[in-house]
């Protein structure tokens, strides 16, 4: 540990501190118009401001300490699966109410399956068909989830 003391910085902690500061600041900004009040008569903005402040303080503490900590890199990352998942879910989110269950599910499953390099087209096709039928029967008919089946 102490051998590589020249290369300091704990990167995961730096990220953690940054996220906390960022989200805390976002919270403060979003709640800027709220009434603060006093401890005895708290306004709607009292606790959000106090807790966002705490979040920023903790974030700053984690961040500053991380700069002096022993070197720790990020785990190896591959953003591709996450991005593909985001696209798949976003499609489902925007199509489900209008285009219905079948279209949005096929989109979700086909695009979502691409997130794995191991996926094969034949398998994707079969599992998509089976899951779409199963989902329509169980969720829409069986459990009465209120989503159209097909676009009207």
């Amino acid at each position, binding site marked *: 540990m102490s051998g590589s003391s020249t290369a300091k910085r704990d990167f995961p902690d730096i990220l953690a501190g940054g996220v906390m500061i960022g989200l805390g600041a976002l919270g403060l900004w979003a709640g800027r118009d709220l*009434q603060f009040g006093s401890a005895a008569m708290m*306004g709607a903005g009292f606790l959000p401001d106090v807790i966002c402040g705490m979040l920023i303080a903790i974030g700053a503490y984690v961040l500053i300490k991380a700069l002096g900590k022993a070197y720790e890199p990020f785990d190896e990352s591959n953003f591709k699966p996450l991005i593909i998942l985001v696209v798949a879910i976003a499609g489902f989110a925007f199509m489900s109410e209008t285009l219905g269950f079948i279209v949005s599910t096929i989109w979700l499953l086909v695009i979502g399956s691409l997130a794995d390099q191991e996926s094969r087209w034949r398998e994707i096709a079969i599992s998509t068909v089976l899951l779409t039928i199963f989902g329509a*029967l*169980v969720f829409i008919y*069986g459990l*009465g989830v*209120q989503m159209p089946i097909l676009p009207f």
Partner: protein
Amino acid sequence: MTHCKIKFAFAAAVFAASASYAHAEWPNDRPIQMIVAFAPGGSTDVMARAIEPFLEKELGADIVIENRPGASGEIAYTALSKAKPDGYTFSYINTPGYLSMQVQRKLGYDPKTIKPIVRIVDDPTAIVVPAASEIKTLKDFVDAAKAKPGAVSYGSSGVGTDDHLAIILLGAATGTTFTHIPFSGAGETRTAILGSQVSGGGLNISEFAGNDTSGLRMIAHFGTDRSPQLPDVPTAKEQGFDVEMTSERGIAAPRELSDEITQKFGEAMKKVLDNPEFQKQAKQLALPLAYLSGPDWEKQMPDRLARFQKIWNETPWVK
């Protein structure tokens, strides 16, 4: 797999009727969607589900209840105002929320695009205290607040609800202040009153009489006349306080809905409300049924709205 079979059995049980329609004239083209602006299990939802089988029989149509909870009903009413006026989308609406909302914020829909079709329930707001409380009448309640300003606390089921508006009106009429404690929903309010965490609280007649009432006492309600559910409870007016507040529930449709469908639907609902079978169930739910035709109901609305506007101008309940 066996669980699939059971699922199918249930699918069949719940949606047994849904296979029986083919293309036809209203209302048999497809299921009628009834939007409920609150989550499953709330009093509006339970009422809607109690009405569902009776209305299906009267109309000879299938009805699907769709819960669109959120923003005290605004999300559901916005959906209703955007729906096609083809007679397949209706929504339950609740006052005073439906009216008071327009006073307190800019809405995602124009109330003019919504047409009330039938009023089902007119449920007076009431003040309830713990049974052991020394407060026996509305006068006691007001006097206690006058004697020690701020010491009398009043739980309501939320900011801007009928319970809340009632206490604002009572405060304005008597020149007293009550410490208003908003809870989320009538269940929480009831619990707080039962546990004597608050001096009293606002519950509607149905919320009170539909549940176990031991441990609670209703000292007054804000209806126009005595309630058939609780004939022994005097109104606020009888006790010398000129405050009225009720919570109404009914059904509305998009404004452009044809007169023919409007009339058919309204008549079917009237028959449901006259059905002794339904009335029996309504009695168990302690629903204060109060049929009013759509036009008659709508006629009352501007008056109520103006009243809310006046309260808002004097004491805005949302800061």
